[in-house]
């Protein structure tokens, strides 16, 4: 297994499957009355969040606790630059307390990778800016596999604000690795620069027309449109966005009835996803959340259980 989990690039297909297999076992543990496993007893995991997060932080916290690790949350919001402390100093200070695993969320792309070069602890990227969110991609793919079986040859649409989305960047890598045929859909202003070249070399499709993509999809992943994008001139109005790219009630009818609908949350109901779609029987949104704990237990287990205590 990889030493750190910074990007989906760190994982081979076999390693992803191994994480899924362990996650399935962890998933079973979640249904027990007593959920604790002793796997990480005596290990310390710090959740260091430089950015607000409720669900990812709680998910990592529960995952660590159910594995019997000592889990500490540190909220380090606000750039360390503004406090006069470098990021390197901030993380070295924390790690000097004796940390085995550092789960890091940071608003800047690349932060997790940089941190991994400075510290001795195992680093898990819990979202770095617009770059990657590998555990989200793993839990999404895991959720889809549980619904659909193998993803080989399956059509998956990723729809929404691709430019600013780490969920997209990790997701497209993970899904294509597992053999899915991914089509990404967004207005041109919300497509990352250079996506034509990128999609050609990485082997996914790009489309501006959701109505063309949706009927063929075996699964659809809707991305959140952040509030600040609405005033950023990326599209003329929320209403126009919904008409063009929202998973509306009308579009739900075009979707295959067994195609799972995923959303990393929090959802903007009525904007990128209609309530009918969010609450539909085919919606996988809550399964994603419970899979998230299992996947993170699996990741922490694989990265930390084998490690010798320093």
């Amino acid at each position, binding site marked *: 297994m990889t030493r750190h989990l910074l990007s989906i690039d760190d994982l081979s297909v076999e390693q992803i499957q191994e994480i899924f297999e362990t996650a399935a076992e962890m998933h079973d543990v979640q249904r027990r009355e007593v959920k604790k496993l002793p796997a990480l007893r005596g290990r310390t995991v710090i959740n260091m969040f430089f950015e607000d997060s409720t669900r990812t932080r709680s998910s990592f916290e529960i995952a660590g606790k159910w594995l019997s690790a000592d889990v500490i949350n540190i909220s380090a919001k606000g*750039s*360390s*630059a503004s406090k006069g402390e*470098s*990021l*390197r*100093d901030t993380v070295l200070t924390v790690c000097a307390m004796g940390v085995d695993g550092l789960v890091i969320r*940071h*608003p*800047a*792309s*690349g*932060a997790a*990778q*940089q941190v991994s070069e400075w510290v001795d602890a195992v680093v898990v990227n819990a979202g*770095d*800016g*617009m*770059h*990657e969110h590998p555990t989200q991609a793993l839990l999404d793919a895991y959720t889809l596999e549980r619904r659909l079986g193998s993803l080989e040859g399956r059509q998956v649409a990723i729809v929404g604000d691709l*430019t600013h989305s*780490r969920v997209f*960047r990790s997701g497209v890598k993970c899904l294509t690795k597992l053999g899915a045929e991914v089509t990404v859909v967004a207005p041109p202003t919300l497509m*990352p*620069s*250079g*996506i034509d*070249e*990128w999609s050609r070399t990485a082997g996914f499709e790009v489309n501006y027309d959701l109505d063309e993509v949706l009927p063929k999809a075996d699964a659809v992943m809707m991305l959140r449109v952040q509030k600040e994008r609405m005033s950023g001139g990326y599209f003329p109005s929320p209403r126009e966005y919904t008409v063009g790219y929202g998973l509306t009630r009308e579009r739900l009818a075009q979707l295959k009835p067994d195609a799972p609908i995923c959303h990393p949350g929090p959802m903007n109901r009525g904007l990128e996803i209609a309530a009918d779609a969010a609450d539909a029987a085919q919606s996988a949104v809550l399964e994603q959340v419970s899979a998230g704990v299992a996947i993170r237990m699996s990741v922490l287990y694989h990265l930390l259980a084998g490690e010798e205590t320093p």
Partner: protein
Amino acid sequence: MSLDHSKTLIAGATLPDGTRTDLLLADGAILETGSLDGRHEGVERVDADGLIALPGLVDLHTHLREPGREDAETVLTGSRAAAAGGFTAILAMANTNPVTDTAEAAERILDLGRTAGLVDVQPVGAVTKQLAGEELAELGLMARSRAQVKVFSDDGKCVHDARVMRRALEYVKAFGGVVSQHAQDPHLAPYTSCCHEGEISGRLGLPGWPGVAEEVIVARDVMLARHTGSRVHVAHVSTAGSVEVIRWAKAQGIAVTAEVTPHHLLLTTDLLAGYDPTYKVNPPLRPAEDVEALRVALSDGTIDAVATDHAPHARHDKEHAFVDAAFGMLGLETSLQVVATVMVENGLLDWSGVARVMSQAPARIAGLDGHGGSLRAGEPANLTLVDPSVQVVVDRDASASLSRNNPWHERKLTGRVVASFLRGARTYGS
């Protein structure tokens, strides 16, 4: 017989045009050239066999961090780095703290430079007060000061308001000034942009800095220069599109000059893949196509000069997440080597061309008398001796700069500065 230290005989140097000569330096000037063998016994002698003598290099674009950030660089340490890089004159950018936007501030830089005494430190004045882009700084008072400021720049920030830029261009005509523009439309490339906009920025999720944000300002400014009949200088040109615009403007007879940095002549945007802030610079490193266009433009004269954009930073200002880290990289000590490696080795410039782009053209653009000569008798003895035959692996710890943000660390470059002389006095080399 005791040595006469007031004179130096440089024996057997090769001039940029390939001719071999001795140079006798005395009283701050080049007293004699030609074959002087045997005629000057008892003077200090430098054996320059196999070395190229270049007129002292002139840097249009240096950031010294004094006043304000003396932990990153001072006028003295920056001067040492400059002398080690073969420079005899450097232009100190205005974005210090406080900003060089008054006559007094400019004179202070001048005096600090004179005290250091290693290179001529010529202050650049801010175009606008506090670099805010709104009101003109006291350009005329800076020009009339002892510092005789001729080059004005808000470098680090773009003079983006077209009306302010127009007024600045008009106003400096009265005293033969020039505006050096940091071309970056802040609407197309906000100052948080830090990666060339393209596939790499898309993949890495870094805020994109599209080439067009530079090109629209360059295009606007050459038209303003034409309209006002004034002179504009484009700092750190980084894209093929800007080169096209400048080439067109020069063909129209518009008074535009341009500089390129060593790093934009060699380093490319793919270096950002590891998120190492050492490679974070503004404008950002560009793709290979731009690098190629810049080399050609420097070779054919579309780009007039190489300028380092030497930008020292304390280590802790680079040890942030990539988007939060400071912009800039060191350049003074390695720029000649980069030009030798990229331009001379590839046959794009000969050593006369190097003298042109690193000494004569920048001295002319900055209006610096006494620099950018041709190593003829009677000229001030500002020169540097270069060994063109060696290859050197750069070691960032072997630097006169106080900072270590050196993108050339562990790279092999061609050539080495052996000695530098400012008005006959040796400022570097033993």
